[in-house]
């Protein structure tokens, strides 16, 4: 929030144009693992298991997933916008341990972001903060996901005006701090999740 205030404060003094833009952004995102779990570090009772226990880290991820986001842009001045965006990434969760991996059902990563967009060296830079949450996951690790998982977003885009419409393309990166009640019940802690993707968007301007 502090970052946004830093951005908005100098812009607030300038003339604010009227109108707004509503659009949709579609992205393809590649993410890091959502959870890492070194399951065997302390619960192994003794040698009874005869070396058959798999000590490799368990990783849960949604490797590549599509995202659809609804965006409302409000101009702050001639160059900058305040953007409100909310959307979902829909994908399959994959559990991997050593060389073995298996599908662990579908899940949706929801996100809502407030960002400032302004020109930066020939492109439009976007910086925002928001929330991320996990919905619909079958596996217990994501049960009772903490609703307020903080998120930070950076993006670089180009925009083409086509009459009353805008088309945009760019690169986006997000970092979120994730945790869930299920993980915390196992003395789990939160950690960082990162993802990067290409985004394509189209929007329509309303007002002047």
């Amino acid at each position: 929030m502090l970052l946004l205030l830093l951005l908005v404060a100098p812009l607030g003094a300038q003339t604010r144009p009227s109108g707004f833009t509503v659009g949709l952004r579609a992205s393809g995102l590649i993410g890091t693992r959502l959870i890492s779990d070194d399951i065997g570090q302390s619960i192994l009772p003794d040698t009874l298991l005869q070396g058959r226990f798999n000590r490799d880290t368990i990783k849960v991820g949604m490797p590549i997933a599509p995202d659809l986001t609804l965006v409302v842009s409000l101009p702050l001045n001639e160059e900058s916008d305040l953007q409100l965006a909310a959307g979902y990434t829909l994908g399959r969760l994959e559990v991997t341990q050593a060389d073995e991996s298996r599908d662990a059902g579908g899940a949706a990563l929801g996100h809502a972001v407030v960002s400032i967009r302004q020109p930066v060296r020939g492109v439009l830079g976007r910086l925002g903060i928001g929330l991320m949450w996990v919905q619909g996951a079958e596996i217990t690790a994501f049960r009772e996901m903490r609703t307020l998982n903080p998120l930070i977003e950076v993006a670089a885009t180009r925009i083409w005006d086509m009459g009353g419409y805008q088309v945009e393309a760019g690169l986006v990166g997000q970092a979120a701090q994730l945790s869930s009640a299920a993980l915390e019940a196992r003395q789990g802690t939160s950690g960082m999740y990162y993802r990067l993707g290409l985004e394509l968007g189209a929007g329509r301007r309303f007002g002047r």
Partner: protein
Amino acid sequence: MSALRLKARSGRACSARPAMIAGIVGVVLLAACDSPTVPPRLIAYQFAYEGFVERVIYRWPDGQTIGVHVAPTGETERDALLEAAFRHTAQAWNDAVLYGEYRLEAAPLQRADVILAWANHALPIDTSECPPSPDGFAWTTFCANSTGTAIAAYPLTVGQHVEDGVHMIVQVLQTELEPDPDRVAALVAHEFGHVLGIGTHPCRLSDSGCTRRQGAHESLMYLGIPERSTPSAADRSTIELLYHTRPDLTP
């Protein structure tokens, strides 16, 4: 309480503006953090079935949906009681593992891996090769195949042959005219600990002679009538450990 039968050998963009630069620095600082991790659990207890010659680790293959058929008797109240007990059990044990290592689910007989039935009710399978031995208030029965390499399937006595078949039977004895639903739920939950692969009964750590590797402070899997109907923290650690250990026997 339960007879666990195992007949054969028995887991940025660059920015010229200060505010944008501050934002980028924030992102870089965040990037220094690590991905979500799950630190140590409580200690697990020994779960392998103690056979005549050696310990045997049995469990279902990773990620398997285990179909459970609750055998109907035709008596509405009794059937509803057992179905409710299974719903509770499935939820409790499915929640015990974090990563979908298995999933208990109600299934019709043709897709069943396990049959749950009242003890005095005729089973829709041929149990002549591996008959249940009633013991206590509830029991789980299964057998290894003739080569001792897998858990054998019971042939169905009704309908057509199914390839995978039923591999385990859980039976519950009804001793009272009006059974206590909580007690039935606890018995069924205990037996499904055996179905999932916990082949022992941990001792109480407060008892003399009970070692840390054999016992738990609290457990659904104690010998005797269960005092709880959901897995304890030690039970959860144990089932997690089990499902990341290579088994001797799988269906």
